[in-house]
């Protein structure tokens, strides 16, 4: 451990500011409160602060940042925007350092977010021991009033002396370059230990006893507290915005007023906000304020622990302080739940899926050309695309890509072709701005593609089985990729039965595939429409998809059943095939949610703890049947 006199410590900070070590950002007063802000002089630094309004996450994941810049007057002109400015954060409290360590896990896990990575690598963090405890904090109970990793330097302001522990080589270099510290004395080291111990025991707000957050939450999914508190909730998202471990984001394209240049920006988002889960079809998956209110606690106390092994709350108390109705305090909620655990346990497990980290730029689309465009009906069009790199898109049936038009936006679209060809096919329904804009494109035009993403159908496990495919509406698009895969590799599969239902005859998709399947030997195809309105023509089955199930001849004990359709369909189809004796593990579904980033960061596609973009969209029913948000 090193030490500097107070005077020398201030000189150290001033030298960093003046000698261009990078942008020095420290804790300063803002009215009666504090914030991280660029320092002009060491004298403005307030190591005696209790807490900052926003956590230092804003320096690593800015409230708004530019990801890409593009020029739409060109066929495909896009550049990644990266910030490479060096920053030194001074005065980060241990709990915020713990939170940054968690953020590192989220943003640098499996798929590495390069925008975050560059900023993180360019940031030097000087942690400061806590001198004043804010009213609503409870770090003592979580042990987050101290931190032993992540920082470059850790300083303790003892009044006349500042004691400095070095965490990394980066920290040593900084210290050697801008200061000449002496070794800390044993008595100073003792003072630091005492200060930390005193801090730890000074929190008046504490966990009622030593319960495990995840275990408590497992027993309280239906607890009345969720509804009681949600009634008072403004759904304003403040609790998530000020939270150091809430790191979800949204992405938006913005054009300059000349309509030539634009950028893709990323901004903070929060799961308490109403449209967080909104998908193109207009559906939201956590519609009630209660579900959104509850989700925040489960994400922190159960879902992130399941995934990463840490409770994503550091006890800073910012949410409690900034929530006007005062219902956002995790300590109060957890203490109340722990005192009255009342239900049978819900494990809410995350299925284990092996995810290969993506090596390329995560957020940069590559260009692809529309080779063919085939209108299927008023709303749906099938596009054949080819990557301009000349490489084949390597994908599995059931995976999806993110399709971009710069200046409009990006949306997840499932791949509907069987892998192997030089081209790939996407069925796109005209629903929102992006899909409307795609419909205006012609062969030869370009779109951006990211991916493929997600967990597709496990073809190895499916091979050698009888197959029953059940598709509803647009669900035939992803289903077609695995149907055609099994027919392309016909000898590897036993009997194939296909059930397909749609709203009315005009909305029927993939006619040429349907004709081909009908004629193939060893393939049984049954189709139905919900109804046939006047003016349309239909002489087949009329009724919802479940009316086809009794017609299908299949061995319920020895058939893999794959179901893809609109959200409402799953419940009824699964009920009927289970009644026939199909075991849970033979049922496979593909689910749609708002897969905004595709790489498990933005948070929008979560079904309880599951990321649809990582563990899905294809799931084995047995793995998700216990998840209340799934079906």
């Amino acid at each position, binding site marked *: 451990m090193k030490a500097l006199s107070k005077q020398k410590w201030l000189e150290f900070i001033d030298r960093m500011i003046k000698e261009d070590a990078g942008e020095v950002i420290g804790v300063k007063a803002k009215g009666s409160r504090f914030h991280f802000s660029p320092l002009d002089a060491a004298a403005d630094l307030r190591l005696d602060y209790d807490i900052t309004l926003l956590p230092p996450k804003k320096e690593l994941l800015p409230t708004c940042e530019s990801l890409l810049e593009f020029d739409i007057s060109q066929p495909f002109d896009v550049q990644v925007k990266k910030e490479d400015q060096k920053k030194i954060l001074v005065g980060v409290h241990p709990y915020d350092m713990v939170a940054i360590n968690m953020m590192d896990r989220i943003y640098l896990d499996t798929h590495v977010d390069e925008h975050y990575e560059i900023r993180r690598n360019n940031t030097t963090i000087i942690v400061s021991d806590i001198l004043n405890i804010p009213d609503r904090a409870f770090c003592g109970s979580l042990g987050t009033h101290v931190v032993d990793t992540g920082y470059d330097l850790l300083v303790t302001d003892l009044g006349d002396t500042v004691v400095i522990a070095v965490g990394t080589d980066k920290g040593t270099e900084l210290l050697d370059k801008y200061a000449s510290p002496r070794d800390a004395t044993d008595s100073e080291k003792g003072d630091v230990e005492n200060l930390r111990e005193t801090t730890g025991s000074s929190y008046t707000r504490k966990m009622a006893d030593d319960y495990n957050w995840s275990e408590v939450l497992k027993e309280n999914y239906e607890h009345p507290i969720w509804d009681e508190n949600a*009634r008072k909730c403004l759904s304003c998202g403040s609790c998530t915005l000020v939270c150091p471990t809430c790191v979800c984001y949204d992405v938006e394209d913005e054009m300059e007023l000349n309509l030539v240049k634009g950028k893709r920006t990323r901004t903070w988002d929060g799961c308490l906000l109403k449209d967080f889960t909104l998908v193109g079809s207009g559906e939201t998956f956590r519609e009630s304020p209660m579900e959104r209110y509850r989700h925040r606690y489960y994400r922190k106390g159960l879902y992130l622990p399941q995934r990463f092994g840490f409770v994503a709350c550091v006890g800073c108390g910012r949410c409690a302080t900034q929530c006007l109705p005062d219902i956002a305090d995790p300590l109060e909620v957890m203490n109340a739940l722990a005192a009255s655990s009342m239900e049978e346990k819900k494990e809410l497990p995350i299925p284990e899926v092996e995810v290969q980290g993506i090596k390329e730029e995560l957020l940069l689309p590559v260009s692809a050309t529309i080779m063919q465009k085939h209108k299927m009906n008023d709303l749906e069009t099938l596009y054949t695309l080819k990557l301009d790199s000349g490489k084949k898109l390597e994908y599995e049936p059931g995976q999806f890509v993110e399709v971009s038009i710069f200046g409009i936006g990006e949306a997840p679209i499932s791949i509907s072709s069987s892998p192997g060809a030089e081209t790939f096919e996407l069925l796109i329904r005209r629903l929102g701005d992006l899909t409307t804009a795609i419909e205006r494109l012609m062969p030869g035009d370009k779109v951006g593609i990211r991916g493929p993403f997600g967990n597709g159908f496990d073809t190895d496990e499916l091979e050698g089985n009888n197959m029953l495919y059940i598709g509803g509406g647009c669900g035939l698009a992803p289903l077609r990729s695995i149907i055609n895969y099994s027919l392309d590799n016909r000898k590897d599969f036993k009997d194939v039965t296909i059930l397909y239902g749609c709203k009315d005859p005009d909305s029927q998709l993939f006619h040429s595939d349907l004709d081909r399947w009908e004629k193939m030997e060893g393939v049984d195809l049954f189709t139905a429409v919900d109804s046939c309105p006047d003016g349309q023509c239909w002489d087949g089955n009329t009724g919802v998809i479940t009316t086809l199930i009794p017609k299908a001849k299949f061995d319920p004990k020895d058939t893999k059943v794959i179901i893809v359709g609109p959200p409402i369909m799953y419940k009824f189809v699964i009920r009927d095939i289970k009644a026939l004796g199909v075991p849970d593990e033979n049922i496979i579904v593909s689910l749609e949610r708002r897969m905004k980033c595709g790489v498990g960061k933005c948070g929008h596609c979560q079904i309880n703890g599951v990321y649809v973009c990582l563990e899905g969209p294809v799931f084995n029913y047995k793995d998700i049947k216990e998840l209340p948000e799934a079906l």
Partner: protein
Amino acid sequence: MKPRVAFFDFASCEGCQLNVINLEEKILDLISIVDVVTFREAMTERTDEYDIAFIEGSINRPMDEEKLKKIRANAKVLVALGACAHTGGVNKLRNQWPVENVKKEVYGDADIEGNPLFDAFQTKAVDECVKVDFYIPGCPIDRNEFARMVTQIAMGRTPKLPTYPVCVECKKNENICVFEYGEFCLGPITRAGCDAICPTNGEGCDGCRGYLDDPKMNAAKDVMLKYGITLDMMMKKLNMYNYKKEGY
């Protein structure tokens, strides 16, 4: 062909159109993507041939309503510009009293009987008279939001307003909540998009951008009561830009 754009004003201070002019050098970009064909506040030329009509102001007289209906018939896209057009704005405050009383208060014994210029009815927002395609809220409008909306319309996008409250932008700006220093604020129920300009400058939000589609009114009232705001103060504030006869 570039879309032809026209600006019209009804009962308003014309501050929203002024904010369009305040785009300054960006105006040049604007006129590179649209043809401004009618804009009384900025030019003398005028025409009835236009694609996009921006309407500022609330509707207060039969003659105004007639004129608005003609604009609607001429325009492919009609945009309500600013609070008066969007919600009726502060003009709607007079709907608290019968029209006759208001006229008496303002004009006294002056002879206005039969004069169409004074034939006021209860104030209406633009969408109480004709169909509105898009809204650009605020008192005044935020010129950056105006620019964003125009680019989105020109790109064929549906311009979308935030569906979250002002608190989101206020938190991102790292403000001290105005409730903390005794101000009172409609931010939690008001549609964001202004970058929380009032709270950022120390004033509580007056709700000029209109309330959210599903404002958490009861929760907001509880908060205001908790902070010692009387019902009378609350109603005055709630009514300022969003007067509703039936209350909240």
